[in-house]
């Protein structure tokens, strides 16, 4: 069976598809969150409950940080597809992703501050990873600001897509910012770590929360995408019956 992918590249056919999938993503996100929180608070080993309770911040900190980076990569992917194929929907997807990505970036910094205060004794430090993550937040904000500063939609889409692509260089920097070759030269608070060294129950809760955040992102980004489609395609014929249907 061959699927004509370009059929779904049209806003008119993607709009109802996204609408149908939103409740599923949001229900999945809610269930996974409950499960992840239960696991994170009640199924973790005793070593946590004795003194290092603040460690539980990891269950929102790490998923938020992962999502902030992944969403940026996905945003850039859609920006590139938009530039190559000149498809309206790709640009709309990129634009719909940005606010959620910015929110997760802010959350990673916020939860990181509360964790840092307890484990390192400071809310903020110019540690390489924190600094590059802060720049990622500015990139998201810059992308959104550029988009809204240009009145003509197509120009705004192309300009902000270029900005997003240039900013992609930041993602590997964030990723490898913990691999400081010489601790005397660059003191990094974020140390080299591997998923293999994380205790199994903590890892389970963390991964479930990451799945929950992914699912949430799909749901809320599709909601925002539908808003963008309604706003940008409001003069198309197919919008009219759809709007009347909702009244």
């Amino acid at each position, binding site marked *: 069976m061959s699927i004509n992918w370009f059929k779904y590249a049209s806003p008119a056919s993607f709009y109802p598809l996204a609408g149908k999938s939103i409740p599923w993503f*949001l229900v999945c996100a809610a269930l996974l969150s409950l499960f992840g929180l239960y696991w994170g608070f009640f199924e973790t080993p005793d070593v946590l*409950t004795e003194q290092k309770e603040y460690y*539980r911040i990891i269950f929102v900190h790490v998923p938020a940080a992962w999502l902030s980076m992944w969403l940026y990569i996905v945003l850039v992917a859609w920006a590139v597809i938009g530039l190559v194929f000149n498809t309206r929907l790709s640009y709309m997807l990129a634009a719909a992703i940005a606010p959620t990505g910015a929110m997760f970036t802010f959350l990673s910094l916020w939860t990181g501050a509360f964790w840092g205060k*307890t484990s390192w004794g400071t809310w903020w430090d110019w540690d390489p990873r924190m600094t590059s993550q802060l720049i990622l937040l500015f990139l998201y904000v810059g992308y959104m600001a550029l988009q809204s500063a240009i009145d003509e939609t197509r120009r705004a889409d192309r300009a902000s897509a270029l900005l997003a692509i240039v900013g992609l260089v930041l993602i590997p920097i964030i990723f490898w910012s913990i691999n400081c070759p010489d601790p005397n030269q660059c003191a990094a608070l974020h140390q080299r770590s591997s998923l293999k060294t994380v205790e199994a129950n903590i890892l389970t809760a963390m991964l479930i929360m990451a799945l929950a955040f992914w699912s949430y992102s799909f749901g809320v980004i599709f*909601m925002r995408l*539908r*808003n963008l489609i309604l706003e940008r395609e409001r003069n198309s014929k197919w*919008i009219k019956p759809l*709007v009347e249907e909702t*009244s």
Partner: protein
Amino acid sequence: MTLSEFFSMNGYGFYVWSSFGMTALLMLGELILVKKHNRTILKRLRRIIRLQAEQETSL
């Protein structure tokens, strides 16, 4: 473990609940804002369609 023990988190309650609280607040807040925006857009589009229909009948 009692309920108050759970919330105190061995003295780290402020840090733990500030992190989880902000996460819940922003995620739920984002959902509500996007939903609200959707209602505003639909309302505006309905008004535009109604105005267009009225113009057509008056011609």
